[in-house]
Every structure is written in structure tokens, then in C-alpha cells.
């Protein structure tokens, strides 16, 4: 809690609050503009036009064409939709620190999982080696949500382009695409599809101060997607079901805001992260920071810090009682009884991994909050070390 007893939320990687401006923009679509955008009368056609304007806005922000976007109910669905485009005998390449929604899709195909370095970075040469003539998709997240590693997508795009060129000259007809789930990156990194060199991209409104259950898959020209949800033929037949109008409008507003604020927020969050990490590592010299050190290779507002010997699950509860809300390793891994796959992949030992907290700073985070949180974390971690009789 801060000086006036307010809760300090440091889990923006799990969920972001709806920005007030976004909420205001969404509101009419639940009331006076409730119309089904597929209906023929003018009122509904205006709603349809609003959706298309939102699509244009988002496409513009991604450097894409509006017709190449499919709105989905969130990033997990968009990831699944990307994988649904593959042939039955397709091979896929991904890496060991992807989100579960990617790994679960990867499991359904012949696949190769590329190892990552200790800071979570992928070596493009490893991807080149893992690609086979049957590989149709390379899927690598732009930024990892657990330890904050930013991946070298442009280099991966070159690997994919090389293989594409090889197949062309060899007369092999099988396509190969590069997909990225950029959900965790949208508030911090530029996500222009052509400068990243990707062929498919997943985004989520829920991670950029927009509504939950809205996401999108962008697929470049020439990629034939296969719908997961059949029905009335909305979204060019690729995602049936009446459009989540308010959600899509909110998505566009949230994305616009995120793009406007990106540069200043990046600097601000970087400073706040350092402000948080310094007192913690000086109080606990044994604490381990995961992810790259170089600010250009990491999410600026994410701090993954391990306190070897303590149980992070207890810390989260103890900190929650003190009004500081943080995550263990990752929200998904926290509900299971095992060490996060991301932490095993970067070679973290079990004892260190079990003591891992993920703190994600966000747009509303202030320096006062960070200072108060650091004080509380130091107190709680020290008490826990004391209880266990461990000298950190």
C-alpha cells in the first residue's frame, strides 16, 4: 500500500485497466448504437462504418491493410486461427518460452522447439537449423510476457525469406510464414508489420488498456486462413458471430492511445523499473534478475526478480495482504503445480525459479507507488527469509 493506504497494482502484464477515454468511446455501442452491424437500415450501417473505421485505424497503426485483419475474441483465439491455416502435414518451429496458447497449438503439429539463451533470446541460426522443407510456420512472440525478452524478429524474417527463396528455386510449393504474438509488446514497442518483417501477427486489446476478449490476427496478402468458427460469415467468413462492436471500437481507441504514448511511456517505465530494482537488489544481493539487461532487448516495464529459497506463491499472498499486487513467474503457470516452462527454458534452477516474482509497471504507475512497493517487498521478503532462518 502507498502512504495513503491505496492498493499498488504491479501486474499490468496480466491485465490492464480500461482507459477512461476508451470506455467513453465504447459506451454508445452498448446503448443507442446497439444495432447489429449486418442489418440493412442506416442506423446499423453507421455502426458497420464505425467498425470499418476502427479497422482502418488499427491497420494504419500496424502499417497494414484493413482487409488483412480478422477480429477475434482475444489473442489466444488469434493464435489458434494462425495455426489453423496450416496443412495437416505441416511442420512448425517455435521456441521454448512461448505462451501456452502457442505451445498448445505447436503440439498439434510436427514441430521443433528452439532453445533460448539464458536471457531468453533466440539465436536465428538455431531457427534456420530447425526449419525443414515441411515447415510452414515459424512462431515467435515479439516480447515475452514473463521475463520481458524481445526477440530478433527481423533476423528471423530473413531466415524465413531465405527458406522461401530456396523453395522457390527448388520448385517446392509449400509456403513458409513467420507469425508473432505481439500482445505483450504493443504498449512498449513499435509493431509495424512490415518493419518487423512478419507474415502474421496477433494482438490483444486487453494488454493495452482496452477491453478483454478482443484481439486480432493480421495475415499478409496471399495467406489463406481457415475459420475456426463457422456461421454467419462475418469477418470475411473467417470469424463468424456478430461483431463485438464495443470491443472493436475500444480496441482502436486503446491502440491509438498506446501508439501516441509509446515513446514517452517507454522512457518513463524504464526509469521506474530501475527505481524499483535498485533498492530490491541492494537489500537482497542474492536476488536474481531474469531477462536481458540491454533496454532495447527487453520490455521496459517488466521486472522478473527471483529470491532464492523463498516461495513466490507465499510472497504474492503476503504482499497482497499488504496491498501490493504482483504475480509469480506467470499467471498461467501460477495455477499449476510446477515451475514455469519459461524459467526452466532459460536454465533457472528450481529453487530460484520457485522464488520468482514478476512485477509489471503500467501507465498509471507512479514513482511514489514504486517506492512504497519496494519498501513493502523488502519488508515482506526479509520477514519470510527470517521465518525460514535463511540469511539472504
Amino acid at each position, binding site marked *: 500500500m502507498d502512504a495513503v493506504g491505496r492498493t499498488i497494482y504491479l501486474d499490468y502484464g496480466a491485465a490492464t485497466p480500461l482507459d477512461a477515454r476508451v470506455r467513453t468511446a465504447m459506451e454508445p455501442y452498448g446503448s443507442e448504437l446497439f444495432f447489429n452491424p449486418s442489418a440493412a437500415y442506416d442506423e446499423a450501417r453507421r455502426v458497420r462504418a464505425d467498425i470499418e473505421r476502427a479497422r482502418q485505424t488499427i491497420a494504419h497503426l500496424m502499417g497494414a491493410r484493413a482487409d488483412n485483419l480478422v477480429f477475434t475474441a482475444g489473442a489466444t483465439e488469434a493464435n489458434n486461427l494462425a495455426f489453423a491455416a496450416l496443412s495437416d502435414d505441416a511442420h512448425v518451429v517455435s521456441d521454448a518460452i512461448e505462451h501456452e496458447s502457442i505451445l498448445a497449438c505447436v503440439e498439434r503439429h510436427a514441430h521443433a522447439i528452439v532453445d533460448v539463451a539464458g536471457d531468453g533470446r533466440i539465436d536465428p541460426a538455431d531457427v534456420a537449423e530447425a526449419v525443414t522443407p515441411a515447415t510452414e510456420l515459424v512462431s515467435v512472440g515479439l516480447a515475452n510476457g514473463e521475463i520481458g525478452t524481445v526477440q530478433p524478429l527481423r533476423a528471423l524474417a530473413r531466415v524465413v525469406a531465405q527458406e522461401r527463396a530456396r523453395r522457390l528455386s527448388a520448385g517446392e510449393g509449400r509456403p513458409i510464414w513467420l507469425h508473432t504474438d505481439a500482445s505483450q509488446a504493443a504498449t512498449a514497442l513499435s509493431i509495424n508489420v512490415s518493419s518487423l518483417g512478419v507474415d502474421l501477427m496477433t494482438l490483444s486489446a486487453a494488454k493495452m488498456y482496452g477491453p478483454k476478449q478482443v484481439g486480432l490476427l493480421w495475415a499478409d496478402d496471399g495467406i489463406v486462413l481457415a475459420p475456426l468458427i463457422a456461421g454467419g460469415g462475418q469477418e470475411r467468413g473467417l470469424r463468424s458471430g456478430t461483431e463485438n462492436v464495443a470491443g472493436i471500437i475500444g480496441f482502436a481507441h486503446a491502440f491509438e492511445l498506446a501508439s501516441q504514448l509509446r515513446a514517452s511511456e517507454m522512457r518513463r517505465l524504464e526509469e521506474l523499473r530501475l527505481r524499483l530494482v535498485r533498492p530490491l537488489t541492494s537489500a537482497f544481493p542474492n536476488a536474481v534478475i531474469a531477462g536481458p539487461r540491454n533496454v532495447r532487448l527487453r520490455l521496459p516495464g517488466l521486472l522478473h526478480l527471483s529470491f532464492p529459497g523463498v516461495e513466490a*506463491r*507465499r510472497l504474492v*499472498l*503476503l504482499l497482497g*495482504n499488504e496491498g501490493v499486487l504482483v504475480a509469480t513467474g506467470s499467471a498461467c503457470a501460477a*495455477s*499449476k*503445480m510446477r515451475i514455469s516452462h519459461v524459467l526452466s527454458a532459460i536454465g533457472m534452477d528450481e529453487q530460484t525459479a520457485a522464488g520468482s516474482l514478476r512485477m509489471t509497471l503500467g501507465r498509471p504507475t507512479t514513482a511514489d507507488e514504486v517506492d512504497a512497493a519496494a519498501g513493502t517487498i523488502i519488508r515482506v521478503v526479509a520477514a519470510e527469509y527470517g*521465518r525460514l532462518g535463511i540469511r539472504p
Partner: protein
Amino acid sequence: MSGRVFVGLSGGVDSALCAALLAEQGYGVTCVYMRNWSRDLPGFTCPWADELADAERVAVSLGLDLAVWDCEQAYKETVVDYLVDAYARGFTPNPDVMCNQTVKFGTFAERAFAEGADFIATGHYAAVEHTAAGPATLLRAADERKDQTYFLWRVSGAVLNRVLFPIGSVPSKAGVREMCRARGLPIADKPDSDGICFIGPVGLRTFLLDSLERKAGDIVEWETGRVLGHHDGAFLFTVGQRRGLDLGGGPARYVVATDTGKNTVSVTADPKCPGLWTAEDVLEDVHWIAGSAPDAGEYLVRTRHTGTLRPAHVEPRADGTVRVFWPEEVRTVAPGQSAVIYDGRICLGGGIIGRHVVPACRTSPLRKF
């Protein structure tokens, strides 16, 4: 008090207070969450992760360690398989009785003692008196309405000699909640769980249909043999059952008998039907907490959790079975259920109610089954 005690923490109110009381009494307490079942079923979301989270909150608020032990294999082999197998054979078992015997006071106890526990403790409503050489004496809880000795009759007296039941002396469940609240335990207002521990309130039907094949069969009138309707598996029915027969109106009917071999369910509309009443029960698979059978005589017998304690003449036989003679006829209890025998407050042990020989119907020559 001193010694190391391992407490089975379930995420519920009773085990939370159990851990708190033992810590206050000066025991070195280690909390253990036993994960016995984690699979979701159609229409049933297994709450284990939420229960574990509650157990963690409790342990954290008490400043105690919590270990998570995976007991799924033991639970599957000794409770789930037993349950499915018994139903498939037309019995109505008590999985909680098996769980206590083989998991909580079996696997869990063994591992706890191997890891240095002097005692184990659970949040059961029961009381135990230790003896120098064992076996211990098991007694009903102070709160008779919550007493759980009905589920503990198969636990060995030797293990009970190293078991603590601190909740058993609390006068009421309301008192347990009050004491949790007074200690600021985060689960003080959590509702009671009911139903079979791992299936929860969803019901056995979903669970059984997940394991056993549906098989269409007839529901016949016990008196006449007339087919009244159909069912999708005799194993889904229990003697005495009134609901779920789906016979489309008419008088309330009760299941008198099931035959999983012929896949028939016999019902009656007559509450006085002789098949629904018995003056005698035969108990098999008998267990005595003291290790040996008591003398034949008058005891109190209960055939249902917190059910009436009825005086009956109990006669242990040389073949290991027990005959229970009721002074007047009682409602037939489904075979597979437990009958638990008490001498005053002391729980002596019990047995599994065997299949009744349904008396021949005297009223109708049409009976065909």
C-alpha cells in the same frame, strides 16, 4: 504440548482451524495439501487449484509451511477404482470411508511419519484417546450433528494412536467458524463443502457415466414384473432411491433392488413393500479399531453419516462377518454402504452391508424376475 505434527490442509474451514489450534498448542506444524483429484468432468470444474490457493492463504496467515503432496495415484487406485467397480457390481459404496483408510490415514500418514512427524492431524469431527501401546480409542465428536466417525471406522487403531482431531472437541460448526474469524483466517466464511470429496455437488451420475458405459434396461414393478419405463444403466440406481426414475408421473416409487447382471431396476409404489424393510443385516469386510471383535451384545449402529444411532443386537461370527439384528424392521440400506457400530460414544468399527435377499413377493404370482 510438543512434537511435530503434519496437518492435512484442505482449503476448508475445519482443517484451517485444526492447524491454527495445534500451532497455538505449541506443536511444530507442517501443513500438507493432498492433491487427490484434479480432473474436470462434463459439467464439473474440479476446484483443486482454488482449494490449494485457499490452503496457501491459510498457511501464509498462520506463518506455517505448506507442502503439496500428489496423492492422485493412490486415490485413483484405492478410491476411484473401488467406487467405479462397486457401482458396476450394483453396490453403493462410501468413497470417503475408503479415502480415509487408504489415503488420509494411509498414504498421507505413512509419508508424514517417514518424514519425521510424531503425529498427523486432520479437520475431522471425531475424538481420539491415545493409549501407551495402542490401538487408540475412537470416539464421536462433541458436535453430534457433525460427527464424522461414520467415515473413520476403517482407520487402523495403531494409526489413530498417532492422530490428533482438535476439531472434535469444538462444540459446534458455528463455533469453528467463530474461532476461525477470531484468528483472522481468510476462509472463515467459506461455505461448507458437501458431496463426495472429489466429485463435489455435481453428482455421481456424471462421474459414473464418465467411467462406465450406458446400457439401456427396464424399470420393472417389483410386485408385478410389469415394465414401467427404461433406464440407462442399473448401476446408476441405488436401493431406496426415489428421485430420477423418470417414470412420467404416477405415485412416488422407490427402488427396491437393482440387478447389474440382468440390468434391471425394480421399483415399488408401496412404502410398506417388504423389499424396502429388513430386520437383519449381514456385514462383510468387517474392521475393528481395537484389532479384534467385541463380544456379541447390544450396541448402537448407524447406517448413514450422522444417521440415527439405533440399538441393535450385534453378533460377530467366526467367518469374520457380523450379523446385525434390529429390534424392529428398518428401512433397507443399499448394499455397499457402511454400518458402523458404537459402544456408547466409542466407535468400535463396522462393516459393509451385503446384498439383501429380497423376500419373495407374496402378493402377486406375476413376478418374473
